[in-house]
């Protein structure tokens, strides 16, 4: 919040200018307040679905291979079915490499790996695998939405709520509650105050009222929403996925954008968001609330928003377009046969930052096994080397264009082992506030249908996604 306060005025002015320019179609342009709140990505809305006996059973398995929760929507399937999975898990070495779909003599196992947990579903008949995978991720999203995180401890602490949720989500493979908003009407998320009150009064987490939401045909929105402060904030986050080769040329670069929204508006507001340059967006996906036809014809996002946090839209700007790469990296990593050591020298400088400051700069290198230790000096920030995982992490922080950060020094290698012939690639993390690297800009946000004046804000952030420099 504090960081972004400085940008407050700029945004306000630019928004007003935009408003004046476009004022022949009237709208409510209010002072845009820069929203510097917490990122909302960690509490994506949950979704529920309709599947014809798609999922027979669900097992939650922790990283040690313990099954700590099982739920059967049809008749009970013995947990011994998981043995096939454990076998595959052993073979895969890395949890990420477990095949998501496994075939066993009588069942199919479809699993996802989220937050160090495996969600393993048992399937008996043909079903689109993506359907199940998407479902399992939505389950995980729901847990995250309800409990703030999706981990074993939190699930076992809230076992009953989890079970109630699973029960509502799929009924014999069939869903009843379909939306986070609906679900929260039926099963309230835990919070400290209520759990205290509940223990005192013997109250429950189950809503007393029947959820009407699932009957409406805008199921994503609760009826009768009321807020004292009406506010709508939008986070435009862009991630740069890039591969830069040794010589510094860009092999491929793409932008993955997402607009996360936090909308707390009373009643049934109807929002319209338009962009300065909607032509940038040629590959998009929407929250179901967005009216697709309006997008097709007018290139504006028109929607009745869900209540609370949700992902309004994601977009993809592919490698065919030119993508600005904010930093360059000069590196040299050498391993010498003699003396079994290596040298490392990395410098990072700004490239196309559009005049903004690059923050939270971080370089991660997965060193070859032979590297025992690193003896380096950094002109800025700190570095750590984990000997077991072979991860070298250099946390730089803010990038100062006047004094470029540099990390150099020697690497000590295991003796008697031939030198690694390949150099590890560098993974870069960075963040640029108040900038969408694609140049995307929200020009206005209009609200119809309600008479109050909401606070509105748009925040732009550019991050490095899968940003890799090959050496």
């Amino acid at each position, binding site marked *: 919040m504090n960081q972004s306060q400085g940008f407050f005025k700029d945004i306000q002015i630019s928004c007003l200018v935009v408003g004046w320019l476009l004022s022949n179609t009237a709208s409510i342009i209010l002072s845009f307040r820069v929203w510097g709140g917490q990122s909302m990505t960690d509490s994506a809305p949950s979704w529920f679905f309709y599947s014809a006996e798609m999922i027979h059973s669900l097992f939650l398995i922790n990283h040690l291979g313990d099954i700590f929760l099982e739920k059967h929507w049809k008749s009970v399937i*013995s947990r011994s079915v998981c043995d096939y999975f454990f076998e595959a898990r052993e073979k895969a070495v890395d949890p990420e490499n477990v095949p998501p779909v496994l075939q066993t003599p009588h069942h199919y196992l479809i699993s996802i790996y989220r937050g160090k947990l495996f969600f393993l579903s048992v399937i008996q008949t043909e079903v689109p695998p993506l359907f199940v995978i998407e479902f399992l991720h939505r389950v995980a999203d729901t847990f995250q939405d309800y409990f703030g995180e999706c981990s074993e401890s939190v699930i076992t602490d809230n076992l009953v709520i989890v079970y109630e949720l699973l029960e509502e989500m799929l009924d014999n493979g069939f869903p009843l509650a379909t939306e986070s908003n609906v679900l929260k009407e039926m099963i309230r998320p835990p919070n400290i105050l209520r759990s205290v009150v509940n223990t005192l009064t013997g109250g429950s987490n189950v809503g007393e009222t029947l959820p009407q939401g699932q009957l*409406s045909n805008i199921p994503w929105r609760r009826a009768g929403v009321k807020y004292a402060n009406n506010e709508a904030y939008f986070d435009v986050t862009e991630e740069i996925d890039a591969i830069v080769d040794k010589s510094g040329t860009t092999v491929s670069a793409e932008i993955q954008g997402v607009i996360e929204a936090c909308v707390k508006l009373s009643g049934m507001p109807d929002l319209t968001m338009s962009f300065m340059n909607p032509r940038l967006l040629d590959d998009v996906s929407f929250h179901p609330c967005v009216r697709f036809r309006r997008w097709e014809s007018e290139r504006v996002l028109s929607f009745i928003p869900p209540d609370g946090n949700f992902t309004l839209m994601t977009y993809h700007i592919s490698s065919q377009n030119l993508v600005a790469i904010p930093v360059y990296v000069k590196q040299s990593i050498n391993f010498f046969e003699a003396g079994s050591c290596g040298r490392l020298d990395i410098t990072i400088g700004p490239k196309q930052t559009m005049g903004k400051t690059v923050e939270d700069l971080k370089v991660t290198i997965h060193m070859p096994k032979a590297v025992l230790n690193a003896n380096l000096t950094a002109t800025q920030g700190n570095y750590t080397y984990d000997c077991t995982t072979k991860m070298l992490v250099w946390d730089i922080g803010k990038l100062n264009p006047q004094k470029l950060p540099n990390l150099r020094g020697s690497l000590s290698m295991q003796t008697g082992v031939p030198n690694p012939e390949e150099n590890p690639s560098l993974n870069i993390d960075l963040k640029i506030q108040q900038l969408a690297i694609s140049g995307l800009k929200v020009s206005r946000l*209009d609200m119809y249908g309600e008479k109050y004046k909401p606070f509105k804000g748009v925040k732009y952030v550019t991050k490095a996604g899968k940003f890799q420099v090959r050496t």
Partner: protein
Amino acid sequence: MSASSAFNDEKGGSSSVGEPEYGHDPASGGIFSSDYKRHDDLKEMLDSNKDSLKLEAMKRIVAMIARGKNASDLFPAVVKNVACKNIEVKKLVYVYLVRYAEEQQDLALLSISTFQRGLKDPNQLIRASALRVLSSIRVTIIVPIMMLAIKEAASDMSPYVRKTAAHAIPKLYSLDPEQKDQLIEVIEKLLADKTTLVAGSVVMAFEEVCPERIDLIHKNYRKLCNLLIDVEEWGQVVIINMLTRYARTQFLNPNINESLLEEGGSGDKTFYGSDEDEDEDEEEKEKKAEVAAMAKRKPYVMDPDHRLLLRNTKPLLQSRNAAVVMAVAQLYFHLAPKAEVGVIAKALVRLLRSHSEVQYVVLQNVATMSIKRRGMFEPYLKSFYIRSTDPTQIKVLKLEVLTNLANETNISTILREFQTYIKSMDKDFVAATIQAIGRCATNISEVRDTCLNGLVQLLSNRDELVVAESVVVIKKLLQMQPEKHSDIIKHMAKLTDNIQVPMARASILWLIGEYCEHVPKIAPDVLRKMAKSFTNEEDIVKLQIINLAAKLYLTNSKQTKLLTQYVLNLAKYDQNYDIRDRARFIRQLIVPTEKSGALSKYAKKLFLALKPAPVLESPFKDRDHFQLGSLSHLLNAKAGGYQELPDWPEAAPDPSVRNVEVPEWTKCSSREKRKEKKVEKPFYTDSEGESGPTESADSESDSATGSESSSGSEESGSGSESEESKEASESEEEEEEEEEEEKKKKKKDLKKPVQESESEQSSEEEERKHQRKSKPRKSESESESDEDEESESESSQSESEDSESEAEVKKKKKLAESKPPPKPVKKESKKEKKEMSLLDLDDFEPAPSPQVTPVNTFLSNSLVTDLEGLSLSDSVLSPATIAPSSTLKSYELLHRITGEGLSVEYCFSRQPFSPDANMVAVQMQFTNNASSDTKNLHIEDVKLQSGMRVKEFPEIELLPAGETATAVMGIDFCDSTQAANFQLCTHTRKFFVSIQPPVGELMRPVFLTENEFKKEQGQLMGMNEITEKLTLDVKCRNEHTIVQRVTTAANLSRVPCGSDKECSPPLPPPDHPVHRFAGRTVTSGSLVLVTVATKEEGAAQLTVNCEKMVIGTMLVKDILQALTQ
């Protein structure tokens, strides 16, 4: 709960047997006995009277179930609480019941009556929930009860309950497949359902129970296509998959003409060079020629229904749900003409950013697609580049795609990429890369040598795995042109000293044996070395040594005879019987003895036959015979329950089966009909724009389009439809009404089918149909006819305040207007009326003549004009300047059929509402068309957006049959066009109705002088000003009509022009006058200023200044509409 320690993995699965024993066996350990005791106290808690104790107990029991522990011995104690009042306890009991009912069938029956009671509950949610739990109890004995419940629920008024019924079908089917026929009946019924809520669920049931009954889909095909975008995402997946299969049986192959232009495959084949392949090629070509010839005979025209499906699924590529995107992608892949398939590539590439599991599945499908349609993904080549952080399985799949995409033009970039991959630390991935290079080399002859050289370089790689993999791949490549590459073979022969990987050694030995003629000197030496190390080799190497020995013996027996015998002798005593067998077999074959038969003559031919080069094929080749996106495709094996994707039919089956007959149209309830209407639209106009199905969730822009709607009856139909469908799904009561309406309509239709079918053409009929449908709004044409009525009656009743001249003007206008169309309609309808009182044509008839007409006094307007008169000089005051306010639109609130004889119309009387100045006065006219009296007409259950208020009209105690009454109510719309929803109640019935104001009614006129107007306008510039250019209609260029139309569209008063002497700018020339109107919004009193400046040739500029920008925008639209129509 200390379950983790108590919990026993092995027993978890078969817990039902395991756990009760704990009780009988107290010696089985402290934990178990304490468990046993705990169950005892759980029972006590469940038996207690306190809900909190019960809840606590249930929570602990559910936690036990969740951990996989057995809690079945608590069944009697738990099931007692099924009727518990506490909702959470109840829910947890349900959870328990569904889990254990199967094991305790008799006891479970105790709970059934509770659910049966629930099925009759007036609340739809309770009915649904009861059905849900009831159908989840897997107890065979209740199958008849379930069947009955499902049947009843399938015709429930609430779509939500019907949805639950659809869900229950597969449950019952899996419990008792005997019920299939009955269930199909229910499915058939539910398939005809027109609500999006039901559509997805019933198709799922269909897929589960009777996927082979494709005939059930015909009638519903178009409806499903059109509902698709509004169905929830999971239903979309199922429907799309089903429709893919359907389309494959019903339509012709759209690529029938293009199959000559085969992409992909054919390019690869020419390289293989073997005779068989060429034969195949020729055959294929013949086939293609045949097909093409056939196609020429019959030019392909795509069935409009086929096109409909493609068009309606395309937007779903934008879904945020990967499963939906995949479903559409496979639909396009299997059904679309080649030229159109490309659109899916972008969406699929977008999915690559999703979770790694999603990536995995998507890449598998992309791999299959990229073989058939390489061009499609070529532009996205770079998106498949591999990062060192990708999981190996993803890397390998991306590699597969890259290989499939490689062609002459991009191979150099791809090989450069591959080069970096080879250096990766992930050795499995490196091995896969080498394989990929090999495949590129076989497919693209230009780069074969480059690849081979690169691979040979890899032979000196330090990593043995890399070397080994290279050897294997080189071996395959060399087989294609061995003569050219004897130096490579020599090089490889040297490797035998170092390389240890068995597969690689075996490959080298095979290579040397096979091409020993090219390396005549080295080969025997290699055999010598191998003979030395024979005993230490792996089995596959040993086999190849024997092979090598045999081949050398046949070609070069002089040098190798002894070596061969030595090797064969060693093999004779090998531990592996395979090797022993092989040795024995070869000895007999190659070493001539007296016993050896005829075969030894052919030994050379047998061993040294020319072997075809291996074809390096993608493992994804031909996987597309499985429906893409399916589990079967992913596993490349048919999964249980997989429905084969049928081949295209030779000739298209009769497309008319999908036609929905005309009576069908009218049979369905009004809402559905509108859906149908929407359905039809895309056929006529592609530029459907806003009124598309996505609009259904809309309320605001809806009203905007609604108010525009006068341009075409169809448009207003779809506009009001979306609103209506919302209401409908919210209230069951209305559902009921509609059903009744439906029934009545059916009757009518039976009597008048001819007329109905005619209705398609005649525009009048079109209008009529529309009117029947649209509840709150009427088409322009109708309201005009209404206006006539009103203005007539009004003029007779007009109050004294109205000046004579005004009345005269009105009369004139009236005469002009009342001549045209409605006459014939009226006549017709009167005839009809004699026959049947409830004919829908009635609607068009004016209300019975003795009606009490609304008191259309235009108090406010006339006051204003009076005031104007005061301030204006007589010369300016021409009749035309007076706001001609005669045209008050009236809207239908309750249709006489829906209202069971009671019809209600309302209009915005534009009078100040005396009890509360901030309210808009709505004048309602009740007509009782029924044969009995209606009593106690009043308003109930007002549902409003926040801030809105309603002042109800006083209850009308009695409205005798055939009588009409009026009442005025006030609504404070809060300056928004949100509808006010309420129930209109009679002594017997309640009707859900809603009043939605046009934006022009949200204001009242104020009097401003021109100078004041300009001053105010100056303060409302910038964002508060909206300007729009327009061309006035020819009929609408004189001052009179402009003023009349503006004041009709909005409740504003005219600002007298030229009256102010101070007015600084010179007056505009008289032929280009500027008209100004002013008003204030009713609730907040914000100024609304409207300026219409006319120019030459009917050009004009409309300016609206208003602090409320939403009002301003909408007002501009409305006035624009009014002026340009």
